[in-house]
């Protein structure tokens, strides 16, 4: 080992490729997608064709550098930042398993990885396909241990009942991962993960949410009413039912893998706003602007840049640890706590620097502000990240 901040050539190549894609394809459609609240199917197909597997937003443990070192998590953070810089809502319309991938990778058997990830997403297919992860329920958000959705075994099937909300891409997903409890009396240990495939009877999509931002990304509610799935769809297989089987801890492991990428998206959004405001100051703010105002603007820009760069380093560190198979729960939460906070500061700062042009829908900065807010909420709120970080340091004190 040696401390080295140089990106692997493959990562540089991916970053440049994805950045170009963001410039030429994502940015131009960002405003229209936001206004319409959706993308045309044709565009979604094109996104799938253009990016292929190169823009995987979630880590793929099979990716290796030229030196045969695993770099799947690094690819995910580097790619996610560039995609989100292009447009965070459009990026969630790029076909692929999305957030279903980390949980299946973390908790699934080899056979399940093949069936739900490779067979569904990597075979020759004409239609765009999506994956989704549904954890949140109307009464249980941050308190994941309190989910009410139940799974009851009936012969070689599971029967699921419950309601899930705020689920990205649920309505069009081929593969939806849900957590449900097989035994309420066991608390967290009773929670297991199940895969529901598209078209399963009893899986009913409810309302599609109208949101403050990320409007072009579809957020759905669904109910499970006596929804029957094969017994083999429990992630981890039969072994998951053993006391030490994957369940609640499986999700937590999945979050360790997805959080650095989601944090990197926040960095991408913040960087977009920062760069936009910097260009605007350069082009629009006369050098004759009174000293105090110009100075305060410059200082704000300086702080944004410093904090965004520091946030990126946290994302990279958490991803690097994941690639090295070093436990990274604390570091993943640090990235996820810090990046949305500083990116939010950057977006608000950019609006304030640009003044009326900042809040105007003629520029994208106001959109990024609306988009960034949810990054401090989904995938674990900033508060939950701090609970995880402090428990890692202090131990469980309550």
């Amino acid at each position, binding site marked *: 080992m040696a401390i080295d901040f140089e990106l692997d050539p493959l990562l540089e190549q991916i970053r440049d490729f994805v950045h170009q894609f963001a410039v030429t394809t994502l940015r131009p459609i960002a405003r229209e997608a936001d206004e319409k609240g959706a993308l045309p199917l044709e565009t979604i197909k094109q996104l799938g064709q253009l990016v292929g597997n190169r823009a995987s937003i979630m880590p793929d443990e099979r990716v290796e550098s030229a030196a045969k070192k695993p770099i799947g998590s690094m690819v995910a953070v580097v790619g996610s930042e560039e995609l989100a810089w292009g447009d965070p809502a459009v990026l969630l319309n790029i076909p692929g398993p999305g957030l279903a991938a980390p949980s299946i990778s973390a908790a699934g058997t080899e056979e399940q990885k093949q069936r739900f990830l490779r067979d569904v997403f990597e075979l020759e297919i004409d239609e765009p396909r999506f994956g989704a992860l549904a954890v949140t329920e109307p009464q249980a958000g941050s308190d994941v241990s309190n989910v009410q959705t139940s799974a009851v075994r009936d012969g070689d099937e599971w029967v699921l009942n419950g309601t899930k909300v705020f689920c990205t891409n649920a309505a069009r997903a081929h593969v939806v991962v849900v957590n449900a409890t097989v035994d309420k009396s066991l608390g967290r240990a009773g929670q297991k993960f199940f895969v529901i495939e598209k078209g399963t009877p009893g899986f009913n999509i409810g309302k599609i949410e109208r949101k403050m931002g990320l409007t072009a990304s579809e957020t759905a509610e669904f109910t499970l009413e006596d929804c029957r799935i094969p017994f083999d769809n429990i992630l981890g297989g039969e072994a998951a039912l053993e006391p030490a089987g994957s369940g609640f801890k499986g999700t937590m492991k999945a979050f360790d893998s997805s959080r650095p990428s989601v944090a990197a998206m926040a960095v991408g959004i913040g960087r977009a706003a920062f760069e936009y405001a910097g260009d605007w100051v350069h082009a629009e703010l006369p050098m004759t602007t009174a000293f105090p105002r110009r100075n305060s603007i410059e200082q704000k820009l*300086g702080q944004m840049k410093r904090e965004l760069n520091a946030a990126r380093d946290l994302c990279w560190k958490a991803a690097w640890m994941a690639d090295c198979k070093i436990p990274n729960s604390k570091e993943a939460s640090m990235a996820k706590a810090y990046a949305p906070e500083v990116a939010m500061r950057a977006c608000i700062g950019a609006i304030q620097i640009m003044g009326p042009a900042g809040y105007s829908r003629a520029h994208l900065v106001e959109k990024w502000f609306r988009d960034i807010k949810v990054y401090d909420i989904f995938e674990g709120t900033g508060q939950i990240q701090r609970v995880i970080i402090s428990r890692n340091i202090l131990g469980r004190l309550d």
Partner: protein
Amino acid sequence: MGFDLGPNEEQTALQQTLHSFANDVLRPAGRAAESARQTGEDITREIHGIGVSAPVPEEYGGGGTFDAVTYCIAAEELAWGNPGIAWSVLGSGLAAIVIGIAGTDDQKQRYLPRFAASDPAPSFVAIGEKVAAGDLDSLETSVSDGEVTGEKYGVLNADQAPFGVVVGRGHNGPGACIVEGGSYDVLAPEDKMGLEAAPTSIVRFDGPCHELPTGPDLERAVLWTKLATGAVALGCARASFEYSSAYATEREAFGKPIGAFQAVSFKVADMAIAVEAARTALWRAAWRLEHAEATAAEIAEATGQALTAAIRCGDDGVQVLGGHGYIQDHPVEMWFRDAVTLSVFDAPDLLGDLTVARSIVAHAGH
């Protein structure tokens, strides 16, 4: 090659050695050094013996130099032990680094062997001024045509040093020179609220000097001194974070350890994030300084991140201990004073971010 944050074996060994030393020697010595307003000669000598405070190339009789990342790792550890002592000892040797990087062969021959002695006399690198500290472009001291003129603040060891380095404005960009003891006036010792183990003065320079060649080497040397500020800030931040975190698991209120309350545990989490973010930022800047051409803005960013962390951890550290944090039975109040004092050398809220900003506005649109 490829992104990697794992220290190598030598760095790990050095870090461990310094950590034990910081824990066993610097922590217990901190309060006494603060009261005495100086760092004991034995401590200075011992750190010098480890070879980190004034690295001198072997060809000039020293034990060899090391890279900027390793320097940051070492400085963090010493500052974790005690920021004032770290500032005093590291500051006394910084001139060796500046002359080693930017000096002429003649200057190196003349001055570097003096740092290689087992018990070298202290020196200084004088940068800060009454108004400008972090911002090199705004320095008023002029260094040109063999003359140095200007007033410097925070000059370490000014009344004992046989020589030191002064950084100011040259003909074109930063300029620097070596001044001999006795060729300047020590106007007054500084009576500071923090970093008291590092004795500093206000000094008037007005006379002949030995100029260091200007150019990229000099700029790199001066940026290294900024890294030193950042690394000491990082060690100070980590000290406060770790101490107050441990306290939060022990102190009880309302029947539970105070760390069980989120108002406290979230402070612990935020301190942890600040320390982690500061370290990666600093290592990146140091790596860039070593392997590429780090700009002043990049170094200012990293130093700013570290100083911000030090102030935040200082403040939160005292807050977690409550009344116990405010009294001198615990070291957190000292670290908080040290952090804020240190920030004057490169204030992130004032000048650090402006250094970053200028490069942004200059480059925006391209």
